[in-house]
C-alpha cells in the first residue's frame, strides 16, 4: 500500500507504556491528525515514524517497505518540533538551507529554494536574521520553512501551534492549512486541540493512553464518537449513566432525567450522550424535557446554556437568534432521540 502504514506499534519507557499497539495509515497527499490529551503517546509515535526511536514491537512501512533499520537521515521525512529546535548558531537562511545542503543540492538551487519557501511562509525578507531574535510566530514559520524545504515525502508537525498565544494560533492555523493544501503535502499533524485537528485534517486518529480510540473524518468523529472518552474529549459532556428497562415491550434507557427510548440496546448498562446542539426550544421533538435555566453565556453565533433537569446540570447550545428565557426561569426542551442520543455500552 502506498504511503505510510503503522502496524501494531508498541513502545515502553521503563514501566511506562507510551504506545500500546497502534495501527493506522496515511495515504499520499493526505493530512492525518493525531489527536489526544498530553501523555497519550502522540509525540512518541512521531519519534518512531521519524526513526528517532525504535518500536519495541510492530513495524512502520513506507510504500509497503519496512523502515526498521533506516536511520532518520535516510527516511526523507520532515519533522517540525514543538519547540521548533531552530539551530541557534545559524541564521534564518542557513537554518532553512540545512536540509538542502545535507542533500548536496548545488548552492544556486539552495538559494532559490530557500527564497521560495521563505516566501511561502511570508518571511521573504528574513533570510539574514538571527533566529534568536525572532518572535514566536516568526520562529514557527522558520521551523515550517525548514521542514518543508527538502520536499519531504512525509511531513510531521508536533503541536506546531502549541507554544503560541490564542490570536496568533487562530491566524497561523489558517495559513498552515493553506500552505499544506497548496503543497499537497502528505502530513501528520499532532495536537491536543480538536479545533486544530478538525480544521486541518482529512482524517483524525484519536489516541488515548497509547491506544487508538477512533479513526475517521472530522465529521464522522464529531457526529458519531466511538466511546465516552472520545465524546468527553470533544467537549460533549452531557453523559448520563443509564440502565436498560422494558416498558410495554419497548426498550428504554432509564436515566436521572427520565426515560429515553432505546433502539437495540447492546448491554444492560450504558452511558448516554445527549448532544448539546441537537435540542430545540420547543415541543416539536419526540422527547421532551423540562428544566430551569441556570446560566447562559453568549459565544458569538451560539449561546451556551446550563439547564438543571431533575437536579442534573446539562449543557445545551442554541443559535444566538433563539429567544431564550431569563436565568432562573423554566424552559421546555425537545429532541429527536435518533439525532440527539447516543449510547455507549458499559460493563
Amino acid at each position, binding site marked *: 500500500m502506498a504511503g505510510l502504514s503503522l502496524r501494531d506499534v508498541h513502545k515502553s519507557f521503563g514501566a511506562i507504556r507510551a504506545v500500546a499497539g497502534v495501527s493506522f495509515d496515511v495515504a499520499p497527499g493526505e493530512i492525518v491528525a493525531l489527536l489526544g490529551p498530553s501523555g497519550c503517546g502522540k509525540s512518541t509515535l512521531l*519519534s518512531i515514524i*521519524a*526513526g*528517532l526511536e525504535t518500536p519495541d514491537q510492530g513495524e512502520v512501512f513506507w510504500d509497503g517497505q519496512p523502515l526498521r533499520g533506516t*536511520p*532518520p*537521515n*535516510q*527516511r*526523507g*521525512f*520532515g*519533522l517540525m*518540533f514543538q*519547540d521548533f*529546535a531552530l*539551530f*541557534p*548558531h545559524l541564521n534564518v537562511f542557513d537554518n532553512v538551507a*540545512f*536540509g538542502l545542503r*545535507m*542533500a548536496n543540492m548545488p548552492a544556486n538551487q539552495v538559494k532559490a529554494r530557500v527564497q521560495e519557501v521563505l516566501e511561502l511562509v511570508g518571511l521573504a525578507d528574513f533570510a539574514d536574521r*538571527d533566529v*534568536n*531574535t525572532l518572535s514566536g510566530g516568526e520562529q514557527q514559520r522558520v521551523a515550517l520553512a*525548514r*521542514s518543508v524545504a*527538502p520536499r519531504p515525502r512525509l511531513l510531521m508537525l508536533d503541536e506546531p501551534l502549541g507554544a503560541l498565544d490564542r490570536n496568533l494560533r487562530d491566524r497561523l492555523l489558517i495559513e498552515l492549512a493553506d500552505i499544506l493544501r497548496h503543497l499537497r503535502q502528505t502530513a501528520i499533524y499532532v495536537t491536543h486541540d480538536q479545533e486544530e485537528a478538525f480544521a486541518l485534517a482529512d482524517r483524525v486518529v484519536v489516541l488515548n493512553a497509547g491506544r487508538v480510540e477512533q479513526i475517521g473524518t472530522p465529521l464522522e468523529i464529531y457526529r458519531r464518537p466511538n466511546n465516552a472518552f472520545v465524546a468527553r474529549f470533544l467537549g460533549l459532556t452531557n453523559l448520563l449513566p443509564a440502565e436498560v428497562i422494558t416498558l410495554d415491550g419497548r426498550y428504554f434507557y432509564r436515566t436521572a432525567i427520565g426515560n429515553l427510548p432505546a433502539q437495540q440496546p447492546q448491554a444492560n448498562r450504558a452511558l448516554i450522550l445527549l448532544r448539546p446542539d441537537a435540542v430545540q426550544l420547543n415541543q416539536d421533538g419526540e422527547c421532551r424535557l423540562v428544566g430551569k435555566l441556570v446560566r447562559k453565556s453568549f459565544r458569538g453565533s451560539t449561546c451556551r446554556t446550563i439547564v438543571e433537569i431533575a437536579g442534573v446540570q446539562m449543557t445545551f447550545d442554541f443559535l444566538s437568534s433563539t429567544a431564550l428565557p431569563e436565568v432562573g426561569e423554566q424552559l421546555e426542551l425537545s429532541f429527536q432521540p435518533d439525532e440527539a442520543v447516543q449510547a455507549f455500552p458499559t460493563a
Partner: protein
Amino acid sequence: MDRGRPALEAIRHFRPSSLLWLPPLLFLGLFYFYPLGSILQASFARGEGGPAAAFLEALTSPALRGVLWFTIWQAALSTLLTLLFGLPGAYLLARYRLPGKSFIQALTTIPFVMPTLVVAAAFNAVLGPRGWVNLALMEWFGLDQPPIQFTNTLIAILAAHVFYNTTIVLRMVGDFWSHLDPRLSQAAQVLGANRAQALLRVTLPLILPAVLSAALLVFIFDFTSFGVILVLGGPRFATLEVEIYYQTIGLFNLPLAAALSLLQLGCTLGFTLLYSRLSLRVTRPLPLRPRTFTQKGLHSWRARLTASLYLTVLVVYLVAPLVGLAARSFTRLDPERGQYSPVARGLTLDFYRELSINRRESLFYVPPTTAVAVSFLYAGMTVLLSLLLGLPAAWALARQPGGALSRISDPILMLPLGTSAVTLGLGFILALSRPPLDLRASPLMVPLAHTLVAFPFVVRSLTPALRSIRPRLRQAAAVLGAAPHQIVRQIDLPLVGRALLVASAFAFSISLGEFGATALIARPEYPTIPLAIYRFLSQPGALNYGQALALSTILMVATAVAMLAIERFRIAEIGEF
C-alpha cells in the same frame, strides 16, 4: 540487613562522568584552598606575642584601623554616588524607547571590562597634571603649575569607582525595571498617588532587590579596589587591599598581610551574607512583562531635553577618559625634563616607538615590548590552562546539573570570584614558594593565578553553551538528512566552538588586565603590561608618561577586541555573563 548493599549501590550509581570533576577540583585544592590555608596558618603562626598577635596588631594599630575605616567609607560613598548617578539612567533606559539605545548600552559596558590600570591611566590622561584639561588651562591662562589637583585626591578615587561601576547599576537595575509591569505604578496613580508618591511607595520598593544586588556588588568591588587606589589615590590613601600589598612587597610583614587578608575576606563574606538576608526580606514574586509592554516614547520636549542632557553626560563621562587616553598617547604636548627648547607639538608615534628602545642601556631595565610579549604569552597560557580545567567542569555541570557532585562543586568553583586578587597573590607567595610545591622559578606561577581568576568566567560561559546543545537539535538535524558525522560537524562543533571562543576571550582579557595578583607574584624581569604601566606612571618625565599611555592604549585595544569577540560569537540569550 545486607551490609554489602550500600557499597554496591554506590558503585552502581557511580558514573564515569564524575571523574570529570577530578582535574578542576584538584586544581582548586592545590591553587586556591592550599594557599588560603597558608594565609590562615601564616596569620596565626607568629613567634612572639602569641597566635593572635597579627590580628591584635591589625585591629589595634591606629594606622591600620584608619585603613579599615577608610576602606569602608570610601566604598560606601562610591556606592552611593554610583547609585545616584546610575539610577536615573537605569530608569531612562528601562522605561523609554530611545533612539540609539542599544548603542548607548553597549558603550556603557566598555568601562566595566577595562583593566584598572587602563582606567587609572585614562583619568590621568584627561585630568592628571599632564592631562588634556590641565595642559589646556595652563596654555590659555599662562600658568606654570597645573591648576587642577586631581590625582592623589579622594575625588579621583570616587570618579574612577563611579566610572567603573555605573554600568552594573544600569544593567542590573535597568534590566529588572524594564520588565516591571508599569500598570502597578499606574494603579497607584489611579488610586490617587502623584508620580513622586507612586515612585516612592510602589516602584522603589519593587525594584529594591535589584538595587540592593547592584549596590552590594558595587560595594564589594569598591571595598576590594586596588589599582585605582594605588595609582590615582597615591601614597595618602590605602584600602585594605593596598595595605596588604604594601605589607607584603614593601615591609615583607607576611603575618600581618595574612591577617589583613583574612579580615578582608571576612568582611566580604559578611556583606554577602547580610545581602542575602536582606534580599530574602524584600524580594516578592513579581509577574515580569516583556519590554514591549513596559516601554514608551519620550513625548514632551522637556522630557526629551532632560533625557538627552543626562545621556550626554553619561556618555561623555564614560567614554571621554578612554578617548582622551588614546588621543594623548599619540600627541606630544609638554617638554621632556631638562629640555628648554620649544616643544614641537603635534601628533607623534614616539611613545610607541620608544617602547622597544632601552635608552638607559641598563641591564635591569626591561623594555616594554618584553612586557607586551610576556603579557600575551601569559594570556595564551591562561587560555590553555583555563580551558583544560574549565571544559571538564562545564561538561559535568551541563550533563548532570542535578547530580550531588555538581550541586556541591558549582559554588566551590565560584569561590575565587569572591576572593580579592591581592589575597590570591599573597596566598601564592606563602604557599608556592616553599616545598613541597616551590614554583618561584616557574613561568607557570602567573598564568596559574590568572587561571584561578578566569576559571569561574570560563565555566560560567561554557556550561550554558554545552547545555544548549539539546538532543532536539541533533534530532532535527538527523531528520533533515544529516548523518551522525555531519551532526557533529554541523551542530556540536559550531556550538561548542563558539562557546570555546567566548571562554577563551574572557580568559585572555582577564589575564591581560590582571593587576592585583600579578603585582605580588610576577618576577621583576618578566613584568606584564599592567605592571609596566604602573612603573612608567610612577616615574617622572614626559617620555615615561607617554609610554605609560601608549601601553595603556595597546591594552585597551586588546581588551576591546576580546570583548567584541565575546559579543560577536556568543549565542544570543545563552551565556550568563
